[in-house]
């Protein structure tokens, strides 16, 4: 058999939160080859999970046919389930059972014979590097370890087809690398057929074939090389003039969608895709002080092009973020003076030190990124800065106020956008804005004026129900409420997780223009490439500050290990930080 999965005119419709049906999978036909890695890529909501659940026999297609390993999966789901292994996005580990008990349970359920089991278990434990933790309850493992255990449980027996649904989502770069090592090893050694869904292009790049999905439609398919070919000749790197941040140049480029398809800051330069080949005087004019050199095209480039094309086709492309739409938040005061001062900050929970003696300063108008693997102490640091959690010891000053004494007052000067959508879903956009404005003490005409300005600034429809907004618009609304009282400092906790790359570009455009107007931004993110938008970043691990400086300086610090991009720099720094103490779980 050469194909593991064959789909023809597959369709699956759900009822959306607004009560209207929408097609999660829309007329999809594809064939997946056996014995190799196949990637399903696409932003959140592209239909990847729905397609995988149909392959696993957990959902029935509304139309079309789907054959998995030669069997019609809708007619005989159990026959397919007996031969495949499927790891859902949230793998069902029993947190109160130990690592070994979880493995045993899945081995029993799959009927793995005892003699085979011993060999398989030791192989899995060795690959996942978990042999030391077999007695530990699964609930006490870190996020990355849980994911590895999930993979091990999925692989207690050797399946004919392995389906992995976003195995690396919410997993830090180190664990992500380990997971992929395991999968790659299985493909190489056992000729395993693997279908994996991912939002990371560097992961798709490792696969033999890539299917690109968006809004339930299959946009393109092919090997990474053929897909990359779509961007050939259009990809360049521009170097900003000495002394200006790359993000200023990036903003200038991305504000011209007629000339530039996409632009992102990277390694101090700006990588961009131009709209057409050949000489264009307008592009030359746009780039006047930034020399551009061609660079090899990457899968990411092709992906962004496909998304932009498709977005336009569907008629709801993100509005071009011209200079006029930049939020008009004017803050008085000089740029450069520190607005956040952290000295010897410590936070302990019992005898566990979540944050160990951390010091840094953030200047007004700066974009400051806080990076680190899961459990590094980012969230704890963040909460202390926002005044949500008292520090155990140390000095903490926000907007010139000592957080130990004037916490309430300091809170009035900061805005906070949390990781989860924490607005009232059944209130309208206007009601949410009015509520938060009121909560920050605005009243009467001042409140009305601020709400009207916010609606205008973020291009929001005041009457729509907040809970029914698309993810990108929810993000805008969250930003609008965080900024309603015109704070000096804006805290953003993982603001871009779960929104698609196009919305992420728009979001960062808003952030950079806020900073240009003097708002100080503190942001945590697990997208390493987003660190490039920051003026300075700090890398934390196990409560300690491992690196602090501009993205360039941080890359320099990791230069010895040959790190080129932020992702590998991050991995190198965290590993260096861990070495003297031996690996920690």
């Amino acid at each position, binding site marked *: 058999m050469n194909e593991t999965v064959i789909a023809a005119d597959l369709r699956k419709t759900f009822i959306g939160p607004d009560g209207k049906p929408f097609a999660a999978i829309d007329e999809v036909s594809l064939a997946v080859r056996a014995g190799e890695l196949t990637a399903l890529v696409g932003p959140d909501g592209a239909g990847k999970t729905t397609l995988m*659940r149909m392959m*696993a*026999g*957990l*959902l*029935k297609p509304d139309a079309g046919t789907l054959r998995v390993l030669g069997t019609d999966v809708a007619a005989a*789901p*159990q026959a397919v*389930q*007996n031969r*495949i*292994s*499927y*790891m*859902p996005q*949230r*793998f*069902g*580990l*029993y*947190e*109160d*059972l130990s690592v070994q*008990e979880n493995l*045993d*349970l*899945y081995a*029993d*359920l*799959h*009927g793995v014979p005892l003699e085979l089991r011993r060999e398989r278990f030791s192989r899995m434990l060795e690959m996942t590097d978990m042999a030391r933790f077999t007695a530990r309850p699964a609930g006490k493992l870190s996020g990355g370890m849980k994911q590895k255990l*999930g993979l091990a*449980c*999925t692989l207690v027996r050797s399946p004919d087809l392995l389906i992995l649904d976003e195995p690396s989502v919410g997993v830090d770069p180190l664990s992500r690398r380990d997971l992929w090592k395991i999968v790659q090893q299985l493909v190489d050694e056992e000729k395993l057929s693997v279908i994996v869904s991912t939002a990371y292009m560097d992961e798709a790049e490792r696969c033999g074939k890539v299917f690109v999905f968006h809004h339930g439609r299959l946009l393109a398919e092919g090997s990474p090389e053929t897909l990359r070919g779509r961007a050939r000749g259009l990809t360049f790197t521009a170097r900003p003039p000495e002394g200006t941040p790359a993000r200023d140049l990036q903003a200038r480029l991305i504000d011209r969608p007629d000339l530039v398809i996409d632009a992102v800051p990277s390694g101090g330069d700006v990588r961009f895709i131009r709209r057409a080949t050949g000489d264009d005087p307008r592009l030359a004019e746009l780039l006047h002080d930034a020399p551009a050199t061609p660079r090899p095209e990457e899968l990411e480039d092709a992906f962004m092009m496909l998304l932009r094309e498709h977005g336009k086709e569907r008629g709801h492309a993100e509005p071009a973020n011209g200079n006029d739409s930049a939020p008009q938040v004017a803050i008085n005061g000089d740029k450069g003076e520190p607005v956040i001062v952290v000295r010897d900050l410590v936070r302990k929970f019992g005898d566990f030190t979540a944050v160990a003696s951390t010091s840094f300063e953030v200047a007004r108008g700066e974009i400051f990124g806080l990076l680190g693997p899961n459990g590094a102490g980012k969230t704890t640091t963040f909460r202390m800065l926002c005044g949500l959690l008292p520090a155990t010891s140390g000095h903490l000053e926000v907007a010139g106020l000592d957080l130990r004494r004037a916490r309430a007052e300091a809170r009035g000067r900061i805005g906070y956008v949390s990781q989860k959508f924490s607005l009232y879903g059944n209130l309208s956009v206007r009601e949410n804005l009015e509520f938060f404005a009121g909560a920050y003490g605005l009243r009467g005409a001042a409140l009305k004026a601020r709400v009207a300005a916010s609606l205008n600034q973020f291009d929001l429809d005041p009457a729509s129900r907040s809970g029914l907004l698309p993810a990108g618009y929810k993000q805008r609304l969250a930003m609008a409420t965080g900024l309603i009282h015109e704070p000096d400092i804006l805290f953003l906790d993982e603001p871009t997780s779960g929104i698609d790359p196009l919305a992420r570009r728009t979001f960062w455009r808003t952030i950079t223009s806020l900073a240009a107007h003097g708002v100080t931004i503190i942001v945590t993110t697990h997208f390493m490439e987003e660190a490039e938008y920051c003026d300075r970043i700090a890398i934390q691990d196990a409560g300690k500050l491992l690196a602090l400086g501009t993205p360039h300086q941080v890359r320099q610090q990791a230069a010895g290990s040959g790190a080129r991009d932020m992702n590998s720099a991050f991995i190198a720094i965290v590993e260096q930080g861990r070495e003297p103490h031996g690996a920690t779980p």
Partner: protein
Amino acid sequence: MNASGFTTRLVALTRKETRQMLRDRSNLIVGLLLPVVLILLFGYGLSLDVKHARIAVVQEDSSPTARQTVAGLQGSTYLSPVWISTMDEAERMIRAGETDAILRVPADFSRQLAAGNGRVQLLLNGVDSTTASAIDGYVAGALAVPAQQAADRAGNKPAGTASVAIVQRTWFNEPGESTWYFVPGLIVLVMTLIGAFLTSMLVAREWERGTLESLFVTPVRPLELVLSKLAPYIIVGAIDLAMCLLAAKFLFKVPMLGSLWVIIVASMLYLMVSLALGLYISAATKNQFAASQVALLASFMPAMMLSGFVFDLRNVPVVIQVISHLLPATHFMSLIKTLFMAGDIWPGIWKSCGVLLLYTVVLVAATRRKLRKSLE
């Protein structure tokens, strides 16, 4: 799939459920400690019996005859009489809730009695009607004895008054102890509790934590999931049943006229119904919070209010009667009370056990249907 696959998977799943149950301390508190609390609460703390009812006696006639008449009040464990000098004071006491009743012996009592017309006045606090009517009965009883004795001594039956003496005896619960009445019902309540508070969490928790999606793609069958979730809780239920029966026998000395094995079989049958109902609610709601609310409203509360545990079902409106007869708890309640206090009455046993068995089968089948391996 062959039978050995079924056994392997069932054993693996049951082991998993048992471990999860034992590792969650709140399970053991609800499963084993709460029943003990209920046994003690209902056994000792709750009683419909009126004992040591406070009664204020206003003796306006202090003649020996009058004293003799009310002397009977003192010998009873049901009444605690207090002699009060004036009616005003007694009225103040009943208003202040310091006494439950006033017995007034008027000044001309002896004279009237001699004339064959003896009357005393009994004022009752009717706020608590059950207590009031109980006191009425006790006082009438207490006064009747000396009156009868006096009449006997005098040897003269009042002419023309044919007296009918009622010889009263209560069957099945001879001393009229409400503990005897409550404790069998307690078994119903405890068995209901395990289903309503423990098994109702099981499936919903797996939905919430996403563990079901992973289980579904293994060769596991829905029925295996249902059975493995019932098994550990049957053990918990059996322990609770043993505690209830031991408490009934040794702590409260409730008679058990029916055979022990019939009581055990019937109780385990009801336990199955209760566990399966909890599981069904859990599988249908897919959410732990909703499941616990629904279980409380659909299972525990009705078992307490509508099963005949406290309130006699014949006195409730027809609609409520119909609803209460849809509840498995009602069938088991009447069965267990009969078994304890009247003995093995076979036609009733067959009928009730048949109903419980039917409920078990239907609920297990329905839960199995809800656990069809699909996310739709």
